[in-house]
């Protein structure tokens, strides 16, 4: 789809240093879903241009053609990796959003060029994904050397293993299963790579039966959710090594490798430790020919009276931080950590990845805290900072509040609400002009944000 350009797409940058100088985004795309599955999910488009009279409001909206998709994560059809020298194709356009339905297993392709509200151009049915790649419940999307990579939590007609499907990046057809040899890997969630080192890293959440009806207490206390990192040969598609973080560390979710392609380290967030309900951030790094991982951030649970807690937490008398997303700035200096349980967004200086220093914290929402946004100081907010997206220049941090339908309902049983906030990273305070919430999202729950032209979790670079 699409004609090629005469010069490279202006949103492609050779190096992370160049990308930091990118112009600020004027639009943000947010995946929003209807928990009841009675109305279609949607892509909401937010105005992020402070000069615009519509700044901070929903200016575009595209309903999906079906119901019950549960939009979650999504990504671009092309990114800065198109400039990589091994197979350069810099004259393609970044214009399509690849939008998986995590519950329906459909994958949608939306065109964003020359319009505010994206327009549907293709639907990949669950059968195509299943028959060609053997997967269901598509999740993370990354553009890379072989086209589009889409991780998936489940198998086709089976609970697992989950893995990665490859899509052709021009026709968007499912090419097949990515793995040639999956080794010990069974659970799937996020993945990304060290592109110049031919290394892919993947993480573990759970299979569909373990997550779709909510967090299962017995599985959690039985330490059955994912607790490993997997390292792969990106070229040969082979599993190379696993690192077990310890089975008390349940749910290894988001992976944020250094953007600098000469580096071989990255950060992984762990949702909770079943021994003390703390959360943690780990650094993986290469030592000689082996990969190692080390815990570098520990975030403790906060004590709370049982009557303030939802049923699932009453026995523990504490609020777990629940680190559900982390995001690394393009210059690899700042790591943002969302604590969805306690309602806190933290920032760490990770210039030395092995010795992070906390440099900022803001509170919003939270299971007990219910902290308000300064734009609506008397409104007790449910949900917490969840999906984080950082602008390429590192100055703006966007957060949304929904985690995953059934899990929202367990941790925020009186309603998770819907809100999106923006933090200016220089002062590390909320932007009072940017707080779309409540009816702005038309009853839907906002999940991942993608920024126009790319963001801190969308592009990989082949030049330092």
């Amino acid at each position: 789809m699409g004609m090629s350009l005469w010069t490279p797409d202006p949103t492609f940058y050779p190096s992370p240093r160049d990308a930091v100088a990118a112009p600020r985004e004027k639009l943000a795309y947010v995946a929003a879903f209807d928990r009841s599955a009675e109305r279609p999910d949607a892509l909401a488009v937010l105005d992020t241009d402070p000069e615009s009279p519509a700044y901070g409001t929903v200016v575009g909206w595209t309903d999906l053609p079906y119901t019950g998709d549960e939009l979650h994560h999504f990504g671009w059809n092309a990114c800065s990796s198109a400039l990589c020298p091994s197979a350069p194709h810099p004259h393609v356009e970044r214009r399509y959003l690849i939008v998986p339905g995590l519950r329906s297993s459909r994958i949608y392709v939306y065109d964003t060029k020359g319009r505010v509200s994206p327009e549907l151009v293709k639907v990949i049915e669950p059968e195509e994904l299943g028959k060609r790649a053997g997967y269901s419940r598509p999740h993370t999307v990354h553009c890379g050397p072989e086209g589009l990579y889409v991780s998936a939590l489940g198998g086709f007609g089976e609970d697992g293993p989950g893995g990665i499907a490859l899509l052709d990046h021009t026709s968007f057809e499912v090419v097949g299963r990515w793995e040639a040899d999956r080794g010990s890997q069974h659970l799937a969630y996020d993945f990304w790579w060290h592109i110049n080192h031919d290394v892919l890293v993947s993480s573990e959440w759970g299979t569909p039966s373990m997550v779709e009806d909510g967090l299962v207490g017995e599985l959690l206390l039985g330490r059955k959710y994912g607790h490993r990192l997997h390292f792969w040969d990106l070229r040969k598609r082979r599993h190379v090594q696993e690192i077990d973080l310890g089975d008390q560390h349940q749910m290894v979710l988001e992976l944020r490798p250094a953007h600098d392609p000469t580096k071989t380290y990255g950060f992984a967030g762990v949702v909770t430790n079943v021994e003390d309900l703390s959360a943690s951030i780990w650094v993986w790094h290469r030592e000689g020919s082996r990969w190692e991982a080390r815990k570098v951030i520990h975030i403790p649970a906060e004590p709370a009276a049982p009557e303030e807690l939802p049923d699932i937490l009453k026995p523990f008398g504490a609020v777990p931080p629940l680190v559900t997303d982390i995001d690394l700035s393009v210059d690899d200096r700042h790591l943002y950590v969302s604590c969805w349980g306690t309602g806190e967004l933290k920032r760490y200086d990770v210039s030395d990845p092995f010795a992070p220093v906390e440099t900022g914290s803001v509170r919003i929402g939270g299971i007990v805290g219910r902290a308000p946004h300064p734009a609506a100081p008397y409104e007790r907010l449910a949900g917490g900072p969840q999906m984080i997206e950082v602008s390429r220049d590192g100055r703006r941090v966007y957060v949304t509040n929904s985690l995953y339908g059934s899990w929202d309902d367990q941790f925020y049983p009186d309603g998770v609400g819907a809100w999106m906030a923006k933090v200016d990273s220089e002062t590390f305070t909320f932007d009072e002009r940017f707080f779309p919430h409540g009816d702005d999202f038309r009853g839907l729950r906002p999940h991942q944000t993608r920024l126009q032209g790319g963001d801190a979790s969308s592009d990989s670079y082949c030049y330092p």
Partner: protein
Amino acid sequence: MTLTAVILLGAFHGINPAMGWLFAVARGLQERSRDRLLQSLPVIALGHLASVALVALVVGATGSLVTGTALSIGAGVVLVAFGLWRLLSTRHFRWVGMRLSLGQLAAWSFLMSSAHGAGLMLLPVLTRIPAGHHGHAMSGGLFVAGIHTLAMFVTAGVVALAVYEFAGLTVLRRAWFNLDRMWAVALVGAGVFTLVQTAW
């Protein structure tokens, strides 16, 4: 005139980031080593030479079996067809992997040059080498391939060093013209030219 065309085509390949200098720069930047850049260039040129020489040898061998007219018509048809395919197809060369040994880098360059049709543009020149004596056509073809590759190598080397030492890669964002599309048009043009010349 013909020699000038051969050299200019070599320079055209040399200047195209996709044909190798960019990979050499990337390898240098990755290790912060100009030596690694300099090591990569001759290997990339070798792969390019193999691709172009293969075309020259095929033309030489075919030329000893068929008439000059048939050879020119065949070359023209191949050029037009390949050029149209390059122009209309959205597919691009694919290669996964950034950590290559020098041998793998030569193989990459050979495949990249071949997928690009690097040697095909020399068809109008190669088909006009007098085929009176078989060995003469062969060595003439290899001479053309060698001169072409030398021009490519020198150009790529100058561009790679200039970018690595002074210009930086940010220049790519504006200066990386879609040479592939220009190339495809040129292939079709050369094919038509060859056919017209033969029919005349």
